[in-house]
């Protein structure tokens, strides 16, 4: 390599670059900062999707929660349909249609390609209930059927304060309707489910960012090697990096530091339940008591 002390400082045409800086670490820090600056898209304060039954308002009995959770799990295993029951303390001043649709989209219920999610949302303080149906199930669980389920199974029981019974009968009704559509029941629903993994999108992004970091680091290392060639000497036939006290170290990049920036947007729970990436277009029906 070149061993001329009168090297032109080729890197000074990058404004602000100081040879004494630790370029690799700075870049890592900057990238991690950008990763965390994700914009807030929704104004609502939605609860986390921790499972198939989310009783934020505390109106369901423990037995009902277990039963409904088991039924929903069986439904998903048989058909890939994600049915989530949620009760919320407040609709934050919104109408239940808007709230349910936004919540459905944030939780991403249903498989991404099939959009087969159903959300049964109860807002006891506003006396409103809604069944929000994903795009893919609008033909099966039609608005009319959802309306019938609400008016016949759910609302009469809610009127007599039997929330657990109303929710359970509503879930039975929904599963009944979904079960009659043979197209919805797949033999290997779990295998299909694994095809659309939302976590993979995050992994791809992180790999891309890692690649960019690697390339930038490579540039700096190349620059370093040609700028301080005397530190790369041959010792016993192998090139070894010799660092002096006053010269800057090469970019030491701890590979584990960026790996900890986890994927936001998904959800984690003990049962490992999370949304499949589906969306809803506002189908379903509402009711009040």
């Amino acid at each position, binding site marked *: 390599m*070149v061993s*001329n002390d009168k090297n032109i400082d080729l890197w000074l045409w990058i404004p602000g670059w100081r040879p004494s800086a630790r370029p690799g670490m700075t870049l890592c820090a900057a990238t991690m900062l950008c990763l965390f600056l994700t914009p807030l898209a929704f104004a609502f304060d939605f609860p986390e999707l921790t499972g198939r039954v989310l009783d934020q308002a505390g109106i369901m009995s423990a037995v009902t929660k277990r039963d409904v959770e088991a039924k929903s799990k069986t439904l998903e295993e048989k058909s890939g349909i994600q049915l989530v029951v949620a009760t919320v303390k407040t609709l934050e001043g919104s109408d239940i249609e*808007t709230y349910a649709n936004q919540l459905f989209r944030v939780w991403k219920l249903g498989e991404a390609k099939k959009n087969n999610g159903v959300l049964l949302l109860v807002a006891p303080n506003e006396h409103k209930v809604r069944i929000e149906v994903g795009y893919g199930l609008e033909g099966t669980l*039609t608005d009319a059927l959802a309306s019938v389920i609400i008016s016949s199974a759910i609302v009469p029981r809610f009127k007599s304060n039997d929330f657990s019974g109303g929710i359970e009968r509503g879930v039975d009704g929904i599963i009944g309707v979904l079960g009659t559509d043979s197209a919805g029941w797949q033999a290997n629903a779990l295998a299909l489910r694994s095809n659309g993994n939302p976590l993979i999108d995050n992994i791809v992004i992180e790999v891309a960012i890692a690649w960019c970091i690697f390339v930038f680091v490579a540039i700096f290392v190349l620059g370093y090697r040609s700028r301080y060639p005397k530190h790369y000497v041959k010792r016993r036939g192998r090139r070894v990096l010799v660092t002096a006290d006053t010269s800057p170290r090469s970019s030491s990049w701890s590979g584990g530091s960026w790996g900890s920036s986890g994927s936001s947007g998904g959800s984690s729970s003990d049962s490992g339940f999370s949304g499949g990436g589906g969306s809803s277009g506002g189908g*379903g029906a509402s009711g009040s008591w």
Partner: protein
Amino acid sequence: MSRIMNRIIVARIGLVVALLGIALTVSGCGYNTIPTLEEQAKARWSDVQNQYQRRADLIPNLVATVQGYAAQEKSVLTAVVEARAKATQVKVDVSDLTDPAKIKAFQDAQNQLTGALGRLLAVSENYPDLKSNANFLALQSQLEGTENRIAVARRDYIDAVRVYNTALRTFPTLIWAKTFFAGNKPMAEFTASEGSEKPPQVKF
């Protein structure tokens, strides 16, 4: 010696240019951004039109059902049928999305239909036999569902248009907008929320 240094300079410049090229193509502020956002907005507009059409398709059945019980309410029934005919005639092609006047015309026609439907449903309240008719109840729930879908589709369209219009005006996509996409004009949004039964509440 200087030849080697020249090669180093050229190599580095080449590397930076290559990286810049890749970044410009695939990044969120690259060449692809504006066409992608435009297509998304157009797709959302198609959704809006589909939902309005779905509502229009429900109306003949509704009118027939109401006529069976409330034939004397001729004026209201005729108003609905006429408003529907007018609304289905006004169509906005995706290439007309930059023309606010066309969007307004479309919106006005649909608003008229909404008003006529509202009156019809209000009149139906006076006929208990009609109100308890299973077919009518099913149609009513379908109408409510469709109105909700229209609201959601409009919201999605407004969001997509906002993102597209913002990309046309903000840096760095502004550079692409002024050079390669100088012919792209901002898309029109819906003017005001219509007076439907459930006005969507927007939170800021």
